[in-house]
């Protein structure tokens, strides 16, 4: 590791961004794991690409804000659209989501050659954490703080909703509101992770941390706070080692979580495969 590199402002910013984005996404991954909807989150994350492309297409330039807004609007339209289609009782929500998100992703790819900012767009696909500005840091901080505040204020009704919506509704939990709140926070988390890992890989950051923690403990609170810590530390370590290994930071983050997940799956003292084998052999 290059110590001189550590002293450069852009590298310091990248590390701070990795810690903040890693924590807020890792924290939220607890919801994704509890709700068992990693695949629909993956669908939503892909939807952000055409959103960004459309944002650039309409405004003629690529900036932080039109990319964010484009990504957010596209994810909202496809996500809520799939819910609306599923209301009709004819099409299941997963089916609707799959059709809508692949169409949107295809439209994004079709739109790419028409934009002259193609080069930079790749940063949005796979992340470009080295390029974060001070403004980006404030955006990441704002999103992270909002997510933590809202989830902690509404943790009890949210968990009741995730566990069994009808029982929760019969107890007076505003289930519909909680479902929209969780969905809104998910979109925020996805958008905030764009900078670090890009839209194609963002699911890695939004699922893996809590999935790793869930192999070690059954405590719900640990899924959230543990997921946050794993997300932050993992992201920082990945950024630090990416230079030496000659990998771009975005993929490095997701690869590291993948390796951690596999290692935990095999060796976790509580639910690891190897321990499990040994226990059943006895």
């Amino acid at each position, binding site marked *: 590791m290059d110590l001189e590199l550590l002293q450069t402002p852009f590298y310091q910013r990248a590390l701070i961004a990795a810690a903040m984005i890693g924590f807020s996404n890792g924290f939220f991954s607890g919801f994704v794991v*509890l709700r068992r909807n990693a695949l629909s989150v993956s669908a939503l994350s892909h939807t952000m690409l055409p959103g960004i492309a459309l944002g650039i297409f309409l405004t003629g330039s690529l900036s932080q804000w039109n990319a964010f807004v484009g990504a957010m609007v596209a994810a909202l339209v496809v996500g809520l659209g799939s819910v609306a289609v599923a209301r009709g009782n004819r099409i299941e929500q997963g089916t609707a989501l799959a059709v809508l998100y692949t169409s949107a992703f295809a439209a994004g790819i079709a739109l790419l050659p028409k934009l002259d900012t193609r080069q930079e767009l790749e940063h949005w696909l796979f992340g470009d954490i080295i390029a974060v500005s001070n403004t980006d840091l404030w955006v990441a901080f704002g999103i992270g703080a909002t997510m933590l505040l809202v989830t902690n204020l509404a943790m*009890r*009704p949210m968990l009741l909703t995730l*566990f*069994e919506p*009808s029982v929760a509704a*019969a*107890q*007076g939990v505003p289930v519909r509101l909680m479902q929209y709140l969780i969905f809104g926070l998910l979109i925020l988390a996805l958008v905030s992770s764009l900078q670090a890992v890009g839209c194609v890989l963002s699911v890695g950051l939004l699922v893996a941390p809590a999935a790793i923690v869930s192999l070690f403990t059954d405590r*719900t609170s640990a899924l959230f706070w543990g997921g946050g810590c794993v997300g932050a530390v993992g992201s920082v370590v990945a950024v630090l080692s990416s230079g030496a290994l000659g990998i771009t930071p975005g993929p490095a983050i997701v690869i590291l979580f993948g390796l951690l997940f596999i290692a935990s799956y095999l060796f976790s003292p509580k639910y690891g495969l190897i321990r499990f084998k040994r226990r059943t052999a006895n």
Partner: protein
Amino acid sequence: MDSSSHHSDCAHHALHHELVIDSLSVFYRHVPALENISMATSCGNRVALIGPNGAGKSSLLKAIAGLVPKKSGSIQWRGTTVRKWFHEFAYLPQREEIDWLFPITVRGLVEMGRYPQTGAWKKFSSKDDEAVENALRSMGLLDLQQRQIRQLSGGQQQRTFIARSLAQEAHVLLFDEPFTGLDRQAAVSLGKLFEKLAQDGRLIIASHHDLNTAGSLFDEALLIATRQIAFGPVSEVLTEQRLDQLFPNKPLDC
């Protein structure tokens, strides 16, 4: 009914706690799920909802729990009209609808029952802890309270959900097919548990599809097929003629 063994809250009332459903209709869009259902029953009873698939048994339970909007008609509990949810009603869904892999302990699940009292933020008071403790004790779950719910047997899972509704201080327990998926022994003990809950003064309303056991497990029956066919004591409601009409090809031992 022996009022001395009655649930303490019930015993204070000169009248039994009465649930009155008056010409209730529920529609999903334009399709009727329930039309013109009327019945009156009170604490201490076990009521079976019986009817073919799609007859509206689940819809009726959900309507009482305030989960689906009523198109017309009313539900009155203890003399007041219930409009939406009410903490004295507890809804217990079918076992398949519950995510048993959700990481939560038996105690954690029972503590969820206190939400109507604590809301989103209030800390657990000693009264809340006591309610949870009592609920666990009366369902014989004290030794299992730290277990994950996925590690329980079917009967224990059922009891955990009942404990949750007891912690909520619910008087009316609304079960969707509680006996489905239980082995024989668990079904027998759930039957005994229903008897005890009713003796303690709770009102049990459950959808049930086993016509053979309805008579021994329940006091009253509501026979429905979207519309109401009959309501009253089980033996009077379940006449052969009515059942032949409702379940033309149904083998008796299902």
